């Protein structure tokens, strides 16, 4: 598991969930329904203004946990298996970044099953 951030391009219908992304020179398709949650931002430390009526996306950041599989340039499935990525879409602006690459085993899913 590594922690860093990288800019990426994501195909995501408005209001929907990501479908496909371009990362490290390759094209990856989302192969399972993603997990999504929000994490708090300490806006009072990072921002200098928070006027009434503004500030969408200042309080929390949306995070997607995507299971992705590399697409074969010829349309055939890559057999390299699934990879789990945490990506975030930054607001305002809407640019996407990868913030975490997971190992094969996913803690969260494991926890879910036992719940």
């Amino acid at each position: 598991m590594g922690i860093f951030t990288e800019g990426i391009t994501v195909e995501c219908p408005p209001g929907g969930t990501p479908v496909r992304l371009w990362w490290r020179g390759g094209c990856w398709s989302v192969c399972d329904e993603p997990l999504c949650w929000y994490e708090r931002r300490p806006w009072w430390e990072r921002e200098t203004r928070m006027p009434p009526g503004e500030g969408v996306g200042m309080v929390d950041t949306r995070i997607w946990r995507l299971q992705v599989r590399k697409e074969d340039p010829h349309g055939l499935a890559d057999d390299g298996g699934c990879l789990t990525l945490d990506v975030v879409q930054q607001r305002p602006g809407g640019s996407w970044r990868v913030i975490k690459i997971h190992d094969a085993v996913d803690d969260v899913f494991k926890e879910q099953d036992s719940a």
Partner: protein
Amino acid sequence: MPNFVHLHSSSAYSAHFGVSWPGELAQAAAVDGDALAVTDRDGLYGMVKHVKACMDAGIDPIVGVDLAIVEEGPDGLETTGRVVVLAHGSSFPAPAAGYAALCRLVSTAHARSRVGVTLEEMAAAVLDPETGKVALTVLLGPYSPVGRALGGRRYLLPRTRLRQWRNAMPEGSLVVEVVSHLSTPGAPLSTVHAVRMLKLAQEFDVPAVLSNAVRYSREEDAATADVLDAARNIAPLDQLEDLQPTGQAWLKGAAAMEAVAHEVVHQGGYGSAELARLWANTAQLADKCRIDPVADLGWKQPRTPELDVLGLVHPAGVELRQRTEAGLNRRFGSLRGDALEKVRTRLEVELDTIGGLGFDSYFLTVAEVSDMIAGMGVRRAARGSGASSLVNYLLGISAVDPIANDLLFERFLSRDRSTLPDIDLDVESAQRHNVYRRIFERFGAKRVTLMSMQNSYRARGAVRDAGLALGMDRDEIDQIAKQLWRFSASSFREALEEKPELRDFAAQVRASRGVDGPGDPGDHGGHGHGGQLDMLVDLTERLDRLPRHISMHPCGVILGDSSLLARTPVQPSGMGLPMSQFDKHDMDAMGMLKLDVLGVRMQSAMAHAVREVIRLHPSREAVAAQGGHAPDAPFIGDGGAIDLDAVPLDDEPTFELIRSTHTLGCFQIESPGQRELVGKMAPEVFSDLVIDISLFRPGPMKSNMVKPYLESRAGFARPHYPHPDLVPVLAETHGVTVFHEQVLRTFATMTGCTLSRADEFRRALGNPAVEPAVEKAFRDKAAGKGYSAAVIEEVWAVLAAFGSFGFCKAHGAAFAVPTYQSAWLKAHHPAEFMAGLWEHDPGMYPRRLLVAEARRMGIPILPLDINASRGEYLAERTETGATGVRLSLAGVYGLSGTELKRILAGQPYTSLADLRDRARLSRPSLKRLAQLGALDSLHNQAKGRTGSTANRADLVAHVNSLPVHKSGRRGEPITGQLALPMEDVELGALAAGHPAAGLAETVATELDLLALDVSGHLMESYAPLLDSMGVSRASALLGLRNNTEVLVAGVRVATQTPPMRGGKRVVFISVDDGTGCVDTTFFTEAQEKSGPLLFGTRMLLIRGLTRRTGPRGITVQALEAWDLQDTASLPVPAGAPPGWLGPRQTDTIEEAHSNPRMLLGYGAVHDKQGVTSASGFTDHH
């Protein structure tokens, strides 16, 4: 899935929690929902507004509460969580059953010190007592005892708790509420938790519903909720444990809620069937809880106490007719013929209207309360438009004759308006709570409750809590808060640009930007805030107007029938009696009869004065002699009792006093602006006072009515009437429209409409939504009646400017009565009147100004004396035969209530030892009494016998050196044994040694310990300094010519910032220099020059120009101000020729400003330190 109904949302009325107003929530919900629940925290505070908002938005209201659950723990009751409780609508099981159960539940929760209900109480409360069926549904959500047990992946605890709830609650009253705010997986309000709740619900076979636990209508308001979390927990944001985990608590649309539901169902491993079930359960519960405002809440259906409670044998209509007939004979017994017929016709019209609206029992109820108060021997007076009604006059509710004063019933009540009219009763403030208790006794606790009011964030509170959230330094925030002066928090940023007193702060804000971001280049901030001040301004604006808590309304009492407590939840008020969670805006909608019983300090002050007159002059002859009344004056009783209400309204000395403008202490006419107005107007008869009080309002001021009125009155100008038809309407005020009644008659005259229709027109004035329609109707009808375009134009301009302001003549007449009475007392019994004023402190000024006024009037101010002073300010005959006022021991700083009681019980004292033994005072209290000279009489007595020359300073030193008082009763004389009167050996032997205190020191001590300057005026010690600068005294100003440049100085006694035409702010500051008040005006430029001094400084030196305002009036237009105590800053030029700033004539500044000072009295109202506190012109509470 187009329709989603939110079953759990907090409005702004959830104090320190909810962000959005009911209207915002309802509008957001209406986008793709057909109903909305508002479930405020621990109360129905926003319920009525919510129902209104839903009706406006065209959706069904659902009402409920987000209520704390308590449980007996090892240390008593503790809160174990919160649940949502929704009231069922009219078919489940019966109309109003659900809502009544909800009201009782909330009241139960407030009946203990820790708000909340136990599980057992909840289980009992959900049942309708009539049918035994379930009337409420409880939602166990993420904050419930069950939801809170989910953390840490515990298995057993949530199951134990849910089983407990399911077993205790009646079948069909419980659901599980699934909420995901999409927080980090595994954290509270995460989808993981929502899944666990859903699984629990399935396991226990309890239906699950979906909600979003809404706190704000829009996404962008999430940050405001963060700040409220900080304010609620009184901790900075970065130290909060209770901070919402994400900003997802907004009122999401159906699609977004479906996405949440999908996440939960998917992560739980379920399919579309479960999703559909969750969705359907939610819709089903929503349907069960749709409220029919009329059937369930009794929307707009007035309820009054039952006839038998009022002691009526006949129907209310019959009873009202009989009583008014009796009143007719009593009040108008001498009338005959046409005059009597006119009164009878008026009575018929009124009774017909009242009966038609079904308000007979309302009037009888008010009459009952009014009679009850009179029976208690408490002064009372009706105020407001109620004085317009002949019925009120005949029932004895009002003392103003509506026929003689030409008051219109239609202004009070008409068939065109079905809301309950307001009848307001003023009573002695000191008796108000007793009156409330008697009303509860008289009508029964189930029919009466006090009304509440919402206290909301204003600028100062908002900046304090915003600063707290940001973790800013407390002292720094206090400094900023002190500079905020009468503007709403929402315009903070605008104010920073404009207001001189915020100049320093604005510079800090700019400077702070330079620290870590782009800001003004070259502007280096040294405060290290790093932009925090900019954030502070934004967060302050976000908090603006949000409710903080409810408190007892100053005068509202709600009277109903025996169903009242099933229609409003109640909670304890500050005085102990229950108060409704509804405020005045909710009364009409809920059909609640509100009676305003207002405590008026002036009524208490006058009652005190009259009691003092009788105490010193216990016979008719003595009172007549002292007050200069005729020996057979009908208003004096045989024992000397004065019936103020019987005093004739044509007493010349009273009007002389008013015309002198020495009206400090008089009701309604003591403010700087009013003193100026009475000086110009020179009232001669009672109706002049009615006009004076009515003129001193925004409407007449804004439409420039004062000047033409005064000029016509003085005979300088001929009265102008737009049309001869209007002469009868406007003659009493020389062609100027002053009263609401005149507006009504103008409409009626020019359009031919009825007076009640005309009142509807009047109400529309100033309301941009409906005024254009009124204007069109007026123009069309008036043109139809043949009035020329020019006349129509002119009259409409007056009406439009009048707006909805102006004054009801009935109200003016009701106010003018205590105005006249207080002036009468000041003219005839000044010392007793002053005692009443000091005791009850009714006016706008600090008490010390009224002491200065007594000094000016030559009334002896008798110092504190351990034997002569009591616990009240009392009038006292001095050796010279004059009447003075003896200071009260109750005013001594730090003297406890029990010490005061012991002193009074033990009076008189023969020696210091006697005082020590019997009053058992703490050493600091004894020392303070010595410092204030209260022991001087004992001391002097002893000195007279021994020839000691010790002074007060020696006495203070001696008292200070005494051993601390020993507790216990050892030293006390045995009961029944009289203390022997012995000579005060102790004081007689006191050695002289300390230098006597000077006047300045004595006065400083008095101000510290009494907040009064008694021995001399506070300014006296400044005399040499003032003389060296050539400062003019207030008493000398009247002798100066207009436009003379002067220096004046004094103690600030009043500061006002009335709203001005054109938006430019004017600040009025009045200072007292011991010879009287100087009223000064600061326009923009002078405000700029004075900056932070404007509001923060107590002692001021002001340079300005005299402005003559009338034969008896002069004010100062300020040019610049200094802090008198900051001697180094004062403009004493080195080597200046003597008299460099003496009066000299300047002609450069023209008479530029009309007379904004007169706007005082409805604008800012200052607290007793001369600092703004509230607004509104009925400030004589």
